[in-house]
């Protein structure tokens, strides 16, 4: 091959450091999903509320989150807000950026899921004396989350992969950041990134399989 000898032993000796990085990557992705789902539900409610201001806020969020690069969103969460004197650590900036992105995409998933739930269900709930919020919380939302479950795992995978953008805001403890650091030290570029690629692949595969198992248990008809 191209005049380069692969030194797997040297690269594999860094595996423990990379696996520590993988844990941080998963931590960021999980946090960003948990907060992202909560925010997406809120955005969905804003859209259903019929209030023009709330609706406008939700639509703007979704539009920006879905139509600008994630890199831009993360960069803005670090360097952008800093020009207004607000400083977030690299970890927080990345978390905010990915969460913002997640919430935007998930809100759109939820909107699609809502379309599959007949309006008559809300009205039936209301006729039983539920408030609009109760009808949403007890009847619509559980079905919405169920329909949107697989798209949500998709977003989770996307969140894992987006953590690699943390290096642009100075993060060096996630999987990609650790790999980048080790690369600077040793110049073992190909081995290190191949290992990182495999770890990323395994993480996302485990998430997908796990989600399938959970879905099979939770959503038996």
């Amino acid at each position, binding site marked *: 091959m*191209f*005049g*380069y000898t692969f*030194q797997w032993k*040297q690269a594999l000796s860094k595996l423990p450091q990379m696996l520590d990085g993988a844990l941080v990557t998963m931590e960021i992705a999980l946090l960003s999903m948990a907060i992202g789902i909560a925010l997406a539900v809120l955005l969905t409610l804003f859209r259903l509320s019929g209030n023009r201001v709330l609706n406008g806020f939700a639509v703007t969020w979704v539009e920006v989150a879905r139509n600008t690069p994630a890199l831009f969103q993360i960069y803005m969460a*670090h*360097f952008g807000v*800093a*020009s207004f*004197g607000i*400083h977030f*650590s*690299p970890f927080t900036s990345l978390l905010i950026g990915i969460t913002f992105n997640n919430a935007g995409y998930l809100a759109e998933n939820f909107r699609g899921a809502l379309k599959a739930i007949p309006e008559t269900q809300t009205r039936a709930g209301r006729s039983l004396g539920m408030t609009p919020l109760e009808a949403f919380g007890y009847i619509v939302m559980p079905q919405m989350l169920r329909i949107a479950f697989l798209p949500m795992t998709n977003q989770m995978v996307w969140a894992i992969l987006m953590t690699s953008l943390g*290096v*642009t*805001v*100075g*993060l*060096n403890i996630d999987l990609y*950041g650790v790999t*980048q*650091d080790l*690369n*600077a*030290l*040793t*110049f*073992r*570029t*190909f081995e290190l990134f191949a290992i990182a690629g495999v770890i990323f692949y395994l993480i996302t595969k485990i998430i997908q399989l796990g989600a399938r198992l959970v879905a099979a248990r939770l959503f038996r008809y």
Partner: protein
Amino acid sequence: MKLGLTLGGIAAAVVLATAAQADKLDDIIASGTLRCAVTLDFPPMGMRDASNNPIGFDVDYCNDLAAALGVTAEIVDTPFPERIPALMSGRVDVGVASTSDTLERAKTVGFSIPYYAFENAVVANDKVEMADWEGMKGKTVGATAGTYEAIWLEGQVKAWGEGEFRPYQTQADVFLALSQGQLDATVSTVEVAEANVKSGNFPGIKIVDKAPMVPDYVALFTMRNEYGLINYLDLFVNQQVRTGRYAELYKKWVGDGEPANLSVPGVDR
């Protein structure tokens, strides 16, 4: 017919023989082009002028090398982390990218003798009280990922056991973060520090102290097994100093003063 076959055989043998013996140095001379990896985000070594043309010490150095080889130079803009992939995938022939010649890296690529040496300075945000380099202890500091000073600073932060280290991807991002106050201090080459303080692009920063590091010797690099080329690079660096071109380029890009001594007293290379 027979003659044709024989001639054909001889021709094939000649082609094969040259192909087998041609090394990188031959390839460069034959192709007529020398492709240099230069990092154009590292003033005054590599940068772009107002009309977006690559300029700087490293750019001139590559042009000189190409002139010596009798070929045309092609500058390939290569960010620091991409220097090795660019070399290994055959996109460039030589790295002229202010690359520190660490032993760890020399296991992967082949370095020439040093062609430049940096002193490093501690640069801090105006609002931070800092008397000398040890004032960085416990502070949030950062540097350009993958550089010698970043490796040193990260090691320092680990040794202190307090404070935070952040590597940013580009020199510009480091100074932006410093100017915004996201970083309290950074370590960069004296050249870069002075250029950035002078440019006024990053208000609110000041040079505090020299960083107590071993001078950052940087070398040209190519494939580790290309001895012919490495040999040529060594002689080329030697000639640049001998002919006074090194001092000339220093004056042009860095300013008045003495260019760093490139030989280490008391030892040969």
